[in-house]
């Protein structure tokens, strides 16, 4: 600990002596007496002796405010990851966001307002949500968007539940594409079986890593309720919504499109152009920082005919008694405060601030900006793929890089003889201040055993990518 900058004031010492829990010795004695025990420890006999803290916690002695700030700043500077060249992907991306957005978002009206419980007096909030919904519906090419959900993975879960509600005569089975993120699959597998819904896999082609009508195998002996396809998939490959539509129609199931990276819709054809029933997505890339894994933003769109089965809140545009423009929470009879246990979903709040930020981000970018950004990301990843392939050829390195259409991620797949290569590269890159990517599993049928997934964003320049290629080419 550094020497004291400023001695704590008398006032600060006084505060230090105040306990956070306002329990006096006298109160403590009376409570213990009432419980019929002699000490607090007698109430917690199940905690093993060796796990109990004896004496005081190992904390530094008291500090002044200035000293405390310096100490914490030093501590946070040890945390290097946040400042490293970051190529981690798999659903959370280190994109940029125009600085004015945080300035506006920090206004009290936005930052401190909670969910619109009295909708008629929160017109500003409702207008914000309405505009968010309008932009998301346009981005997805779908008829309706809700007021947002918590994140992409739970949006997929809600989509499956909605599909099962609207396909009561089908088998309560959902097929999800093999290229769906591990965490999304885990969420489905932890929630659905207890509700009597089974999760099966729509395998990917071992060469192209795409889930296509040719790779779909119905092994459930009937019509499944839902079929889910994620694009871009977890290996970075852009999948084809038309294939999802045709498989779902053939199997008489509801089609669920999972747009894992919202910015991909800036250049690729949206689910709405392919008659998809339910389209969901992760909106983190729309101006929201990676954070420590959240808050993120769940996007949820469906067809107008299904809005009564759609989870979450919906804001509508209407006229008040004087004929003036007004916004209202519509179809709120589906929500839990009215319908209780029969609600279509218990999501009744929303990610309002994140939705608002996404709306501001989309406003800042405009359709042209999103398209320009998307093209920039795609050209970076194609540059990287070619450079890696050339380097591998030059150095006689046998690994494969995913083929096909990409957006901002790619995966290098390694065979059984090189299974430690992924770990080695991650460590080598870290030593040079780079988070090179994530270890991902690959289809068993591909003949490979592991994959290194690398994402790029607009923060990365050609020199950054060249540095990656150098590391990947080192023996």
């Amino acid at each position, binding site marked *: 600990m550094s020497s004291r900058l400023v001695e704590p004031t008398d006032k600060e010492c006084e505060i230090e002596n105040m306990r956070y829990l306002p329990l006096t010795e006298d109160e403590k004695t009376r409570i213990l007496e009432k419980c019929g025990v002699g000490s607090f420890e007698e109430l917690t006999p199940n905690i093993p002796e060796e796990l109990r803290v004896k004496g005081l916690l190992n904390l530094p002695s008291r500090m002044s405010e200035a000293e405390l700030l310096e100490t914490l700043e030093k501590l946070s500077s040890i945390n290097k990851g946040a400042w490293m060249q970051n190529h981690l992907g798999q659903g959370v991306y280190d994109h940029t966001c125009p600085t004015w957005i945080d300035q506006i978002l920090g206004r009290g009206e936005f930052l401190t307002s909670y969910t619109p419980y009295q909708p008629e007096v929160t017109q500003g909030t409702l207008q914000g949500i309405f505009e968010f919904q309008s932009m998301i519906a346009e981005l997805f090419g779908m008829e309706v968007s809700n007021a947002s959900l918590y994140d992409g993975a739970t949006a997929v879960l809600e989509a499956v539940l909605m599909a099962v509600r609207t396909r*009561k*005569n089908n088998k309560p089975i959902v097929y999800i594409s093999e290229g769906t993120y591990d965490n999304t699959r885990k969420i489905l597998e932890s929630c659905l079986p207890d509700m009597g819904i089974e999760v099966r896999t729509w395998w990917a082609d071992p060469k192209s890593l795409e889930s296509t009508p040719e790779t779909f195998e119905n092994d459930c002996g009937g019509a499944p309720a839902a079929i889910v396809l994620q694009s871009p998939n977890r290996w970075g490959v852009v999948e084809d919504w038309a294939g999802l539509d045709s498989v779902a129609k053939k199997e008489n199931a509801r089609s669920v499109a999972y747009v894992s990276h919202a910015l991909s819709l800036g250049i690729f054809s949206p689910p709405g152009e392919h008659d998809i029933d339910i389209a969901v997505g992760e909106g983190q890339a729309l101006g929201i920082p990676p954070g420590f894994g959240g808050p993120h933003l769940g996007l949820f769109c469906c067809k107008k005919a299904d809005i*009564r089965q759609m989870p979450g809140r919906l804001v509508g545009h209407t006229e008040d008694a004087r004929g003036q423009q007004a916004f209202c929470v519509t179809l709120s*009879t*589906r929500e839990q405060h*009215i*319908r209780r246990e*029969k609600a279509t979903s218990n999501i009744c709040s929303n990610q309002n601030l994140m939705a608002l930020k996404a709306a501001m981000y989309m406003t800042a970018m405009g359709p042209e900006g999103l398209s320009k950004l998307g093209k920039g990301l795609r050209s970076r990843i194609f540059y990287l793929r070619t450079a890696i392939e050339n380097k591998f050829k030059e150095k006689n390195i046998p690994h494969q890089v995913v083929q096909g259409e990409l957006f901002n991620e790619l995966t290098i797949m390694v065979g059984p003889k090189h299974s430690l290569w992924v770990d080695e590269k991650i460590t080598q890159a870290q030593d040079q201040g780079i988070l090179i990517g994530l270890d991902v599993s690959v289809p068993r049928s591909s003949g490979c055993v592991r994959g290194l997934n690398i994402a790029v964003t607009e923060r990365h320049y050609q020199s950054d990518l060249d540095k990656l290629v150098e590391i990947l080419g080192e023996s």
Partner: protein
Amino acid sequence: MSEIRPELFYTKEHEWIKKTNNPKVFQMGITDFAQSALGDVTYLELPELDSTISQNDVVGSIESVKSVSELFAPLSGKVTARNESLLDDPSPLNSSPYDDAWLLEIEITNESELSQLLGPEAYASVAQ
């Protein structure tokens, strides 16, 4: 005071049941009392045609501006007809609950359930 028709049977869930020309087939709807308690109906959800339903099961829902109520099967059997026009425009549920706004026709499979239905007098004491 809401209207109760003498020729109909009722349930305590505020549904009415009417005989048809076919002795196995019964028509059902919601009562005048029910529609006035619900307020303006905005949306209706009915069971699929030909689906099998069991007495007291929830088979659909009626959504009004202020609530969503469940539709219970008054009798067990098969749904042989649905009032499809109500799905597009449910307003007859408020204006003509006993005539235009019939909901389903059910071909019953258990005649003994008929004895559990209420007559007009018994229903009048429920609908207060």
